[in-house]
C-alpha cells in the first residue's frame, strides 16, 4: 500500500504528517509484537562495563555473551537491583 493510498483511505491531506504518523504506528506495533527481530554485536573491552543499546532497537529480547571456549553466544541474566559496590574504579 502506498503513502498516497493511505492518505486517501484515511482522509489525510498533509504528506509530511502522514509519514510521521506512519512511523509512529510502526514503532507502536514493533513495541508490542516481534515482527522484525534483529541482532547486534559489539566488542567487549577489558575494564569497561558500560555499553549502549543499539540505536534502532525498539524492544530488547535477550543479551548474550560469547563463550570463547566453544565460540557460542550464551544468554546472560539480568540483575534487578543495583549491586552493592565496595570498590569502584569508575565512580558515578
Amino acid at each position: 500500500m502506498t503513502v498516497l493510498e493511505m492518505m486517501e483511505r484515511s482522509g489525510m491531506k498533509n504528506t509530511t504528517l502522514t509519514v510521521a504518523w506512519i512511523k509512529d504506528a510502526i514503532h507502536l506495533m514493533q513495541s508490542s509484537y516481534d515482527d522484525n527481530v534483529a541482532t547486534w554485536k559489539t566488542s567487549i573491552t577489558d575494564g569497561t562495563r558500560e555499553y549502549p543499546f543499539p540505536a534502532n532497537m525498539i524492544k530488547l529480547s535477550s543479551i548474550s555473551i560469547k563463550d570463547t571456549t566453544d565460540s557460542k553466544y550464551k544468554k546472560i541474566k539480568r540483575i534487578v537491583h543495583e549491586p552493592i559496590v565496595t570498590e569502584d574504579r569508575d565512580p558515578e
Partner: protein
Amino acid sequence: MSYDTNKTWLYRIVGRNIHLWQYLDGANTDTLGGHRIKLPNEYYGSQLIYPDEDITNGLRFEGTAFIEPFVGVDPNELDGSDNPTLTGETATETSHINLSRMLSLAVVDYLKAQLADRKGEIDRKEYYMREFWKKVGDNESNKRKTSMSFPSSPHAVR
C-alpha cells in the same frame, strides 16, 4: 578466556546503557611451601567485577528493530516467483509501506485515530485505536495455527 558465560556474566539496565558484570567466586592465593594459601589481606568470596578481558563481538543484543518504513516496491507482491527485493527510500507519496496488507490497514486506522484526536473526538479516536490493535492482533494470529479440544462428558449427547 571466557567460559560458561551464561553463569559467570550478568547485566543491569541503566538508562540507555547496560552495565556488564562478571561474577567471581574465589580468592587470591599464593603457594607457600608447596601449599596454596589464601592471602589474609585479600578479599575472597563472591564478587562482581568489571569485564576483565577483550572479546571481539562478544556482546550480542537480540530484539525488535525499527524496519525501513518506506520501500520502492510493494512488499506484498511476488517478483515472479521470488520474494520482492526491498530497499529503503526517502518517503514520498508513491513510496510503499514496508508492512503486510493487514498491518497497512491497521496503520490506516491509526491515521484515522490521530485525525480524530486532533479534532477532539475522543470516542472516534478510541474506536479506531481498537480497530488498529485488533488488526495488529489478527496479523499475529495469522502466523499461528492452534487447535482446541474439549473432553466430552460420559452422558453427553453424541
